[in-house]
């Protein structure tokens, strides 16, 4: 019968079927009231595994935040010193039993999603796993000052520390998400990296795992029996995209409800122009810089022929107009950092002493150190060697690539030649580890405290770890030691300020940006509060009021 129809009619019939089919696909949901709601998050990338000690991937951490609880969590202030700003989660309370012993009392209502109670044995098991070399957890180093964790009774976990320091409580609770011992004990630790549990996790958090379609999406559903209160938004769905542009387009086209970071002014502008979206700026955790390799390219035993000279580094720093670069790249959505500092850190202080933007002084310093344009080719030289270097940049970072080009131009104006080497991340990592570079564009995503990042990136103790620039100043190291072991926040602040100003004076890097994060979420989502260190930490308190529900909120899972 179909073949008897004219071609046009046949085509119309097929099209009508498709349209009707897709319309019918939007089957009406029946959910009403305060506990409906579906939040679709446009994610760039995909989790590698949903087993907290085994991953540092951003999307994994966001999802783990909903599945696995910590004993307590940092507050909106992100104050890491002492315990007064921390909020109870699995632990309903805690007390200090002497200077080195911290006792947590678990909430007796806490349950794993298979019905088993959460016990102190789970806490001890978790510490054991996080510090087991076979698990190779990236958080292991952060727990080095915790000597042991034991279960005094099913509801009481006891932490013993090796030494007393201001961030003991932070270390005890921030790095570890408590794991179900009864479900993981049977898996050999050296196989945790690919454990099936990590693709179908059972947690104790506000949301339960539902499904994970590789490369596409992952769904969680609210645990209506969650002991700290039923989450108001019923379904959380992450849609995975490989690219920020695609994720933003999904958001703007109303095919996703939110994104935690829009990154570029262009994306922020697109989201701000979308009528269904609200923009939420919050403090960023990232700072970026152009770092100078203080050791010779490929030979860490020799000083770099250009950057080994502190005055030359200072001159190059003064030759770069950081404020105008920031405006060009980020618009209003970042700040010039007062040193190697992210906005997340409580030590952030724009009044810290820094080198000024002063091209006259920069030129004078270079000339006085023998770097003059003797052959009039526009590039300074000394003893026949041009003042030229290669700048290593990740080819996947638009921000850093743009910065590199702008810096290249600014330095050219003071007679310095910069060759940009754009390579992919794996090559950047390899060359950094081998010290095979002159200068590099880097960015770090930080924890809430400077106590872990600064020593690892900027002190001698970071050699062989993340101090790729081989910056080494014993005075700075001493100030960092003093800051991390200070008894009070005021003492720590003074020491940190001294340390950061020391780095600024030594100029091992030009500190370029500290990001403001900008999130966008659908207007119908209410009570959106974003904790700067982890945007997803408070999602369980967000809600979609009944009068703002749309079709996709009502669909039954």
């Amino acid at each position: 019968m179909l073949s008897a129809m004219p071609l046009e009619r046949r085509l119309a019939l097929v099209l009508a079927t498709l349209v009707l089919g897709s319309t019918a696909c939007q089957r009406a949901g029946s959910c009403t009231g305060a506990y409906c709601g579906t939040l679709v998050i446009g994610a760039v990338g995909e989790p590698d595994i949903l087993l907290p000690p085994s991953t540092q991937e951003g999307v994994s951490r966001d999802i783990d935040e909903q599945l696995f609880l910590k004993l307590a969590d940092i507050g909106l202030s992100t104050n890491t010193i002492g315990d007064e700003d921390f909020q109870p989660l699995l632990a309903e309370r805690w007390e200090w039993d002497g200077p080195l012993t911290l006792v947590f009392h678990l909430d007796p209502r806490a349950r794993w999603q298979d019905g088993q109670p959460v016990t102190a044995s789970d806490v001890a098991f978790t510490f054991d796993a996080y510090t087991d070399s076979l698990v190779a957890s990236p958080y292991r180093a952060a727990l080095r000052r915790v000597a042991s964790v034991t279960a005094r009774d099913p509801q009481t976990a006891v932490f013993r520390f090796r030494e007393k320091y201001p961030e003991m409580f932070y270390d005890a609770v921030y790095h570890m998400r408590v794991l179900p011992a009864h479900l993981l004990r049977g898996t050999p630790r050296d196989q945790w990296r690919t454990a099936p549990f990590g693709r179908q996790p059972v947690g104790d958090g506000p949301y339960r795992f539902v499904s994970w379609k590789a490369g596409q999406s992952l769904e969680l559903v609210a645990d209506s029996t969650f002991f700290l209160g039923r989450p108001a938004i019923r379904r959380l769905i992450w849609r995975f995209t490989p690219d920020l542009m695609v994720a933003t387009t999904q958001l703007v086209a109303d095919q996703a409800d939110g994104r935690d970071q829009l990154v570029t002014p262009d994306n922020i502008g697109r989201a701000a122009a979308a009528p269904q979206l609200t923009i939420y700026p919050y403090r960023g955790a990232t700072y970026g810089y152009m770092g100078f390799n203080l050791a010779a390219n490929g030979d860490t035993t020799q000083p770099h022929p250009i950057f080994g000279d502190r005055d030359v580094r200072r001159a190059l720093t003064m030759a770069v107009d950081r404020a105008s670069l920031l405006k060009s790249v980020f618009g209003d959505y970042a700040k010039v950092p007062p040193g190697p500092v992210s906005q997340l850190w409580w030590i952030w202080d724009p009044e810290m002493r820094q080198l000024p933007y002063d091209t006259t002084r920069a030129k004078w310093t270079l000339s006085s150190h023998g770097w003059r344009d003797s052959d009039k080719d526009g590039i300074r030289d000394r003893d026949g060697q041009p003042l030229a270097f290669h700048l290593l940049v990740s080819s996947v970072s638009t921000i850093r690539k743009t910065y590199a080009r702008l810096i290249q131009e600014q330095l050219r104006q003071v007679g310095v030649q910069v060759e940009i080497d754009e390579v992919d991340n794996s090559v950047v990592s390899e060359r950094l580890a081998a010290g095979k570079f002159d200068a590099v564009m880097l960015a770090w995503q930080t924890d809430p405290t400077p106590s872990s990042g600064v020593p690892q990136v900027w002190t001698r103790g970071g050699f062989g770890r993340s101090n790729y620039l081989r910056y080494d100043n014993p005075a700075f190291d001493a100030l960092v030691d003093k800051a991390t072991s200070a008894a009070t926040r005021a003492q720590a602040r003074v020491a940190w300020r001294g340390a950061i100003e020391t780095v600024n004076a030594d100029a091992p890097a030009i500190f370029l940006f500290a990001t403001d994060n900008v999130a966008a979420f659908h207007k119908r989502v209410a009570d959106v509060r974003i904790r700067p260190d982890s945007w997803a930490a408070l999602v369980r308190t967000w809600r979609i009021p009944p009068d703002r529900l749309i079709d996709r909120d009502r669909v039954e899972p």
Partner: protein
Amino acid sequence: MTAWLVRRVAASIAIVFLVVTLTFILMDVAPGKPMLGPTERLVDPQAEAILNRQFGLDGPLDVRYVSYLRELAHGNLGLSFGLRRPVADALAEAIPNTLLLAGAALLIDFLIGLALGVYQALRVHRIPDVVLGNVTLFLYSVPTFWLGLILLLVFGEWLGWFPVAGMSDPILCPTVSSFYCAVDRLWHLALPALTLGFVGAAGTARFQRAAMLEVAGQDYIRTARAKGASERRVLLRHQLRNALLSFITLFGLAFPFLLTGAVLIETIFAWPGMGRLATDAILRRDFPVVNAAVLLASTMVVAGNLVADVLLAIADPRLRVRSGGGEPA
């Protein structure tokens, strides 16, 4: 024919083995190291060293190569450290997605391309031929990713007629379990398949037009007309059939694309296929996934060529293998 086939298959296996070996070596000597975690997070060298050992990334090249071949012989493609799962599982999920996209794109490509090519050849040098010639030339010149971005912008973001990314609606259709969700999948397939299909069809149309015109001047076409055959019969039985021989070659070349995917389009439309899988793996230096993707791609290329040769031999009596088992004439 059998002896020729056996020789071709043996040569194909040797080629695949060579490609896989070269890839294994080149990936090892190429700059860059396996990315075991995000680049903007602090590195714990001890943890990195342990993971390198656990994923078998730390031994000498020859030991790793022998181990790889041994595992491959047992059908084990290894573990992906980027995906934290067996490579075979990841491929098993990506291949059907790529088959769907590439199959739909090839269908659009060949149906539209063939039809346009024939239509243009029948109206050669007339206005429809000139207009279509310019349109197909324009489309053929357009980079696929650019066309994809334009379609995405216009039909996805501005008009909202099609989804901008993904394979299915995660809210309504977490799994394809109903007719409606199958339609939803077609709806998601539309933009990426049309992007790939249009660009391919432009090339196919130009190819097919040229083939049709070349055949039109042959003696047997004149003979057919002289014998009083209808124009329809001349077109379908004589002209189109002979012009299709080059079309089969084209299909053989396009065949590997069915499994290797379209890297840029899969990225732009967030289509979770082989292209995206391989690209991510290359950027992370996820050797097991890269090796498996190359193994698959090279197998498809040699298989595609083999299939095309066999099809040509079947379709064209002049190309049939001589009975002595030698090369096709």
